């Protein structure tokens, strides 16, 4: 049966893609931590008052970390070795201490058990020591240290909650996808809120109300044409119209959503029109025969009956918009943004852009993060579509 074969091919490609992504990405959900008993000694850090910003900027927060590490390896004392040892802990270890002290000044001069994120190279070693496509860049000695700390349970792996609680970072261990998730959510909200009603309204107008004339033809040709306009051109449009002409800010979900909405509308219109066309005329006649107005026929019968098809259009249109990068490039949403956006007018990026950025970063740790990001994106897409699919299933009927 050809149909089976076709589905099989399509599903097989999906499975291969998925297997590929999962095999690369599952480690992205694992973080490597290093837990140390840190003595927050004020002299060691040159810090008396953790609430004072100036003092903090002068303080040496690495010292207590190094001291804690040295407790495990007392024979380390050359400067070079010390530096290597400190490299066990990620780049923001000192920052972690600084923040903690800033928030709880009373911790000064106490000993705290702090869980640090391990340095990237440590993480790569721990997770991928036997994977030839990763380069291990720890020195022999460092590898020995890591092995020892792992045996002691100081270095450990766990679920990567950082990924879901932070914005982007240049250090893979610190990088999170929350900013992109929120950005995507905001952008998609704008896109959906505009493209779905507009798409349906336009489709209804063209199928049910439009007089047969040149204007209608013109509109129709335009819509079909817009579907074929490469997405990056919509980026140009967004740049020229929304940003330059209307003076909207760059990099914000509002503009991104608008651009993606313009891009999605033709998809929704075309599929909605197909769906409206397939509503049999006898239904329209029946309603009109009772004295329903054209608008009532449309609102009460045609749209509900065509809704499954309209939802399909929305689903694939939104899926496409959700995975789109190119137009966002031109309106500044392809950017390094650390802070999680809080509104439609905050700088933000979106999931595919985050994935794209990670995929083109040189650090090895980002490879798995990119794949993990893809999994997150797919999950996002599935949950976004689940509702529409459920609705569609409920609305569908054969007559």
């Amino acid at each position, binding site marked *: 049966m050809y149909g089976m074969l076709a589905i099989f091919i399509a599903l097989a490609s999906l499975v291969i893609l998925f297997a590929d992504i999962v095999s690369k990405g599952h480690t992205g959900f694992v973080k490597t931590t290093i837990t140390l008993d840190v003595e927050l000694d004020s002299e060691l850090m040159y810090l008396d008052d953790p609430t004072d910003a100036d003092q903090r900027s002068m303080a040496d927060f690495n010292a207590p970390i190094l001291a804690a590490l040295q407790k495990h390896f007392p024979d380390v004392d050359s400067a070079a070795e010390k530096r290597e040892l400190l490299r066990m802990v990620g780049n923001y270890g000192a920052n972690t201490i600084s923040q903690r002290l800033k928030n709880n000044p009373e911790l000064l001069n106490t000993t705290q058990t702090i869980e640090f994120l391990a340095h990237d190279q440590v993480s790569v070693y721990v997770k991928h020591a036997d994977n030839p496509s990763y380069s291990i860049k720890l020195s022999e000695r460092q590898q020995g240290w890591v092995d020892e700390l792992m045996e002691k349970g100081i270095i450990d792996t766990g679920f990567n909650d950082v990924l879901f609680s932070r914005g982007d970072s240049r250090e893979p261990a610190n990088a999170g996808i929350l900013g992109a998730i929120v950005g995507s959510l905001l952008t998609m909200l704008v896109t959906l809120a505009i493209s779905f009603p507009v798409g349906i309204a336009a489709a209804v107008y063209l199928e049910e109300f439009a007089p047969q004339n040149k204007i209608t033809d013109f509109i129709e040709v335009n819509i079909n044409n817009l579907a074929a306009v490469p997405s990056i051109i919509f980026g140009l449009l967004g740049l020229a119209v929304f940003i330059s002409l209307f003076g909207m800010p760059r990099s914000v979900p509002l503009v991104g959503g608008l651009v993606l909405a313009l891009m999605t509308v033709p998809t929704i219109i075309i599929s909605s029109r197909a769906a409206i066309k397939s509503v049999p005329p006898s239904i329209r006649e029946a309603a009109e025969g*009772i*004295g329903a107005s054209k608008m009532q026929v449309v609102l*009460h019968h045609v749209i509900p009956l065509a809704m499954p098809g309209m939802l399909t259009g929305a689903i694939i249109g939104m899926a496409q918009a959700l995975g789109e990068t190119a137009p966002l490039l031109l309106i500044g949403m392809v950017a390094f943004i650390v802070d999680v956006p809080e509104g439609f007018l905050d700088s933000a990026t979106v999931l595919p852009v985050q994935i794209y950025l990670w995929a083109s970063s040189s650090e090895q740790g980002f490879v798995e993060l990119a794949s993990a990001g893809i999994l997150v994106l797919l999950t996002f897409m599935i949950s976004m579509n689940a509702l529409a699919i459920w609705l569609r299933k409920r609305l569908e009927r054969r007559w």
Partner: protein
Amino acid sequence: MNTMNPSITAEADRQDQRAAIPVPQDKPEDTVLEEGKTVGTPFADDPKFKLRNVSVSYGAARAIKNISLDIARNEVIAFIGPSGCGKSTFLRCLNRMNDSIDICRVEGQLMLDEEDIYHSKRDVVELRARVGMVFQKPNPFPKSIYDNVAYGPRIHGLANRKTDLDDIVENSLRKAGLWDEAKDRLDSIATGMSGGQQQRLCIARAIAVSPEVILMDEPCSALDPIATARIEELISNMAESYTIVIVTHSMQQAARVAHRTAYFHLGHLVEVNETNKVFTAPEHELTESYITGRFG
């Protein structure tokens, strides 16, 4: 003469032409069909519908050829004639259901209560609310039985409360003789009913909005004799306050329910007369051959 009344397209603005309605000659002619010639009594005083020189074409093909006819208030008139002669087409002109067929063009003057049906400013919705229709092929909505019947009353605001609506639904279904079969499954989908049930449902749906005129295109074609009797009884009852136009193939049925009967032939209205007269003493030879089955 017809030539003096150039047929007027429905689309044109036709205000103030009321005065110009011509009265075509009603001398019977026997053998050859001539456009616009109708034997019998096509006209009535104080008609509900006043139809003059109506022609309908689908693209280039003319399906109705210059027909003039009055339909009186509270009358039941039956349209009979061989299949394809234009009964449905003519019927659909009366509430502008032909509008929805792109290629269909209606010409001539059609007046309901002295108002032009095809006037460009005419509110088609209001027209159809007044002139209800039951189609030849049953076309229930793919909704529940209840919703099918309740649809009309809902959009016309005929019920103030839910119970009103329930009453209307029950009443209509009862009148259409479907209540007993449907009462236990009001919530199940209407397209899952038998052919005859669907037909009765469509009748119930049409009468639920209490239109002034009901157009019925072969309402009993899928019905057994008992159900048919029921619908005929309904028609007779309704005739007291409504105007009813019914297309039927059953001459018995026409004889039973109709006051007048119109005989169509290839787009011509050949004869209109008291039902009695049509069936006992047809004036036109075509009518006669049709009712005696000597036709073709």
